[in-house]
C-alpha cells in the first residue's frame, strides 16, 4: 500500500487531479456565506455539456482533462528535452531572421498597418469601444510598466496611482473639478497631456527618491500603499476632487489649428487613432531608450547593483528615472481615459488595476517590448471576450482569479514570459545556477 502511495506515477496523477480540481472550482458556479459549499459541490456535480458531445456532470470532463494532463506531463518528462531542442532548431530560422533590422522594421510596419485598418474591419460597437478603453490604453500602460519592472527590475504595485493622478490632472486643467483650474482658464485636454506627464513624473520622483534606496520588496509594499492612499485622498477631499462622486464634466479632446477644427466625441474610433499615435511614439521612444546609455545602465543595475556602482553608475538616479519615465505613460493614459469617458470615479482606481497591468508585463515577458505588447493584446482581448460573452458561472470579478493564478503559473514555469527578452532569460538562467558559474551556464545554455 505504502509503495503505491509514494509511487511517482501515483503522486503525479494526484497532482494533476488536484490542479484540475482547482480549475473546476475556478470555472464553476459561485457560492455565498449562506451556502458556502454550493460553489464547491456545484463545480463538480453540476450538469454541463462534455465539449458539446453529450451532457454529463462536471467532474467527468474534468477527470478526463486530468488524465490528459497527466499523460502530457508524463510524455513531457520523457520526451521534453527532445521536443524542446526540436522546437528551438525549427525556431532557429525565424529567430535569426527577426534579429535583422530590416525584417524588424518590416514586421513593425505590417503590424501598424493592421492596427490602422482594424477599426474598419471590426464593426461591433462593443469591440470598438474595448479596443480603445481596454486594449490600446492597456498596451500603453503595459509598455510603461515594462520600463519599471522589465528594464529596471523594480516591482511597482502602485501604478494605478500615476494613472489616477493623470486623470485628476486632466479634470483639474479642464476645469471639471471643484478646484479652480490652472491659470484660471478651462484648457483643452491636449494641454493636460504635458502638464499631467510633468506632475506624474514629479510624483514618481517624490515617491521614488526615499523608497528606491531600499530593498526591492519594500518598494513593492510602499507603492502598494501609495496606490491605496491616492484613492483615499480622492475619495475624501470633497472640495478638491469632488469626493466619491468624482466628476463627469471632463471635455473631449478638440483640435484647433488655423482653419482646422476637430472635436473627438463619443465615437471610440477617433480615440483609437489618437491613442495609437501615442502608443507608436512611446514604443519608438522606449525601444530607443532600451539600447541607449540609460537602458544599459538599467541593465547593469538590474544584474549587479554593486558592480554597476563601481563603474560610476548612480543606481538611485537611474532607478528614479525609470520609475518616473514608466509613470509618465500611466499619467498619459489617465488623460486619455478621463477625456474619453468624460468622468472619473475614485473607486475605479483600485489595486486590481495595478495588478492587471503587472500581469500583462509578466505574461508577455519582462523587458521585451514586443512581448509586452503581445501579452497586453492577448490578455486584454481574452478578458474582453469573457466580458462580452461570459461562459456559464462566470462573474466579471472572476477575472482576477485567473490573473492571479496566471502570475503564479508564469513564475513557476516561464518566469521570463511568453516572448522573453534574451537578456532577461539569460539573467534568470544565471541567477538560478548561482551567479558564480557563469561560464558553465553559458556553455550549457547555448545550442
Amino acid at each position, binding site marked *: 500500500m505504502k509503495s503505491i502511495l509514494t509511487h511517482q506515477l501515483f503522486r503525479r496523477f494526484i497532482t494533476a487531479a488536484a490542479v484540475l480540481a482547482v480549475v473546476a*472550482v*475556478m470555472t464553476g458556479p*459561485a*457560492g*455565498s*456565506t*449562506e451556502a*458556502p459549499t454550493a*460553489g*464547491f459541490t456545484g463545480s463538480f456535480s453540476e450538469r454541463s455539456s462534455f465539449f458539446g458531445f453529450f451532457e454529463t456532470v462536471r467532474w467527468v470532463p474534468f477527470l478526463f482533462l486530468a488524465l490528459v494532463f497527466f499523460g502530457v506531463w508524463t510524455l513531457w518528462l520523457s520526451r521534453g528535452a527532445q521536443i524542446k531542442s526540436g522546437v528551438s532548431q525549427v525556431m532557429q530560422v525565424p529567430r535569426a531572421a527577426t534579429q535583422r533590422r530590416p525584417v524588424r522594421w518590416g514586421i513593425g510596419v505590417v503590424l501598424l498597418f493592421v492596427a490602422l485598418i482594424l477599426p474598419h474591419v471590426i464593426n461591433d460597437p462593443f469591440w470598438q469601444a474595448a479596443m480603445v478603453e481596454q486594449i490600446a490604453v492597456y498596451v500603453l500602460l503595459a509598455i510603461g510598466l515594462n520600463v519599471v*519592472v522589465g528594464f529596471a*527590475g523594480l*516591482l511597482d*504595485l502602485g501604478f494605478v496611482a500615476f494613472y489616477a493622478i493623470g486623470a485628476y490632472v486632466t479634470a483639474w486643467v479642464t476645469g471639471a473639478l471643484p478646484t479652480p483650474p490652472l491659470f484660471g482658464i478651462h484648457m483643452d485636454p491636449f494641454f493636460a497631456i504635458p502638464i499631467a506627464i510633468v506632475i506624474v513624473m514629479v510624483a514618481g520622483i517624490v515617491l521614488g527618491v*526615499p*523608497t528606491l534606496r*531600499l530593498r*526591492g*520588496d*519594500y518598494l*513593492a*509594499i*510602499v507603492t*502598494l*500603499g*501609495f496606490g*491605496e*492612499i491616492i484613492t*483615499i*485622498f480622492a*475619495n*475624501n477631499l470633497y472640495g478638491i476632487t469632488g469626493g466619491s462622486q468624482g466628476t463627469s464634466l471632463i471635455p473631449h479632446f478638440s483640435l484647433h489649428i488655423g482653419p482646422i477644427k476637430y472635436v473627438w466625441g463619443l465615437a471610440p474610433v477617433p480615440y483609437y487613432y489618437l491613442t495609437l499615435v501615442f502608443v507608436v511614439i512611446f514604443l519608438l521612444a522606449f525601444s530607443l531608450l532600451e539600447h541607449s546609455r540609460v537602458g544599459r545602465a538599467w541593465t547593469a543595475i538590474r544584474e549587479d547593483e554593486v558592480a554597476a556602482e563601481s563603474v560610476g553608475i548612480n543606481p538611485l538616479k537611474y532607478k528614479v528615472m525609470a520609475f518616473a519615465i514608466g509613470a509618465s505613460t500611466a499619467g498619459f493614459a489617465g488623460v486619455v481615459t478621463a477625456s474619453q469617458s468624460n468622468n472619473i470615479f475614485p473607486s475605479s482606481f483600485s*489595486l486590481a488595476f495595478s*495588478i492587471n497591468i*503587472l500581469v500583462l508585463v*509578466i505574461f508577455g515577458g519582462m523587458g521585451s517590448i514586443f512581448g509586452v505588447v503581445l501579452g497586453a493584446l492577448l490578455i486584454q482581448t481574452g478578458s474582453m471576450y469573457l466580458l462580452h460573452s461570459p461562459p456559464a458561472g462566470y*462573474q466579471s*470579478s*472572476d477575472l*482576477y*482569479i485567473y*490573473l*492571479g*493564478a*496566471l*502570475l*503564479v503559473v*508564469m*513564475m*513557476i514555469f516561464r*518566469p521570463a514570459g511568453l516572448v522573453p527578452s534574451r537578456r532577461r532569460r539569460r*539573467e*534568470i538562467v544565471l*541567477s*538560478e*545556477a*548561482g551567479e558564480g558559474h557563469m561560464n558553465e551556464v553559458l556553455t550549457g545554455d547555448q545550442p
Partner: protein
Amino acid sequence: MGGFGHYLASHLVTMRKEFWFLFVGGVANGFLYGMVAVGYTLVYGVLRLINFAHSEIFMSGGFAGYFVMKALIGTSSPNGFATVYLIIIGIVAGGVVGAVVATLLERVAYRPLRKRNAPKLAYLISAIGASYFLFNMAGKEFGRYSISVPQPYINHTVFTIFGAPVQLYYIVILIAGVIMLLGLDRVVATTKLGRSIRAVAQDAETASLMGVNIDRTIALTFIVGGALGGAAGFLFGLGTGVVYTMGFTPALKAFTAAVLGGIGNLRGAMIGGLLLGVAESLSVVFVQAAYIDVVAFGILVAVLLFRPTGILGERLGRAA
C-alpha cells in the same frame, strides 16, 4: 502661529479627554497587528522575503472563524463558560485554517521557485499572484459582501480605566494576544523547532550542513506564522465582520509594524504592532477617521526613510 497653536491646543484638550478611550482600542488593535506582524517577520527571517500573501492567511482565518461560529452559535446567545470555549474553538479554527493556507502557499507559490533558486522578483510576483488568486476565490465562493460574525458573547463594558470603558471584546483580544505572543516567543527561544528557525535565519547554508532540514524548517515557519495570522483573522472578524478583501489593510499595517520594530526581529514585531495600534488610534484626534490608513502609511515611509532597521534593529536568527 496663533492659528496653529490654537489648533494644537484644542486638539490636545480632546486628546486629554479621549486619551484612555483611544488608548484601550489602540492596544487591542496593536495586539492584532502584532500577531500578524510576527508572521511577516518569521518568514522574512528564513526566506529574506516579504510574504505578500500573508493577508490572505488572515482572511482565511477570519472566514474559518465565521463558519465555525455560525455553526456552533446559530441564533443562541452564549455566555459564561460557553463563551470561553467558543472563543478557543474559534481561535483554533482560524489558526488551523491559517496554517493550512500558509502551507499550501509555501508549497505552490514558494517551493518550486526555491528549488530553482529563482531571482527575488519572481517570489514577489508569485506571492502577489497567489494573494490575488486566494482572495478573489474567497469572494467567488463566499460572496463579495461584508458579513458580521455571530457573537460568542454579549459585548459589554467589563470595567473602566481612568473613566474609559474596556469592552469584553478588547479583553478577549488582550488575553489571546498575550498568550499567543508569549508562547511564540518561548517556542522560538527554547524549543528545537525554534532553534532550527533561528539557525536557518542566521545562515541557511551552514544550518543545513549542521543537519537542519531546511525545507522542513521553512514549512514549519509558515505553519507557525500562518496559525497566528489565522487566529488574528478570527479575532479581527469577531469585531469588524468578514469580507473577502478584509486582509489587505490590516496586513499592510502589520507589515508596517514589523518594519517599525525591525524586520526579522520577533519582539520588535510585537512592540511595533502595539506602537502602531496606539499611534493610529490616537491620531484620530488630529486627523479625520477616513485618513487613519494614511497615518499608518506615513509611519511606514518615515521609518523606511529615517530608520529602515526599525526600533529594535534587524536581528535575524537571534533569540528574539
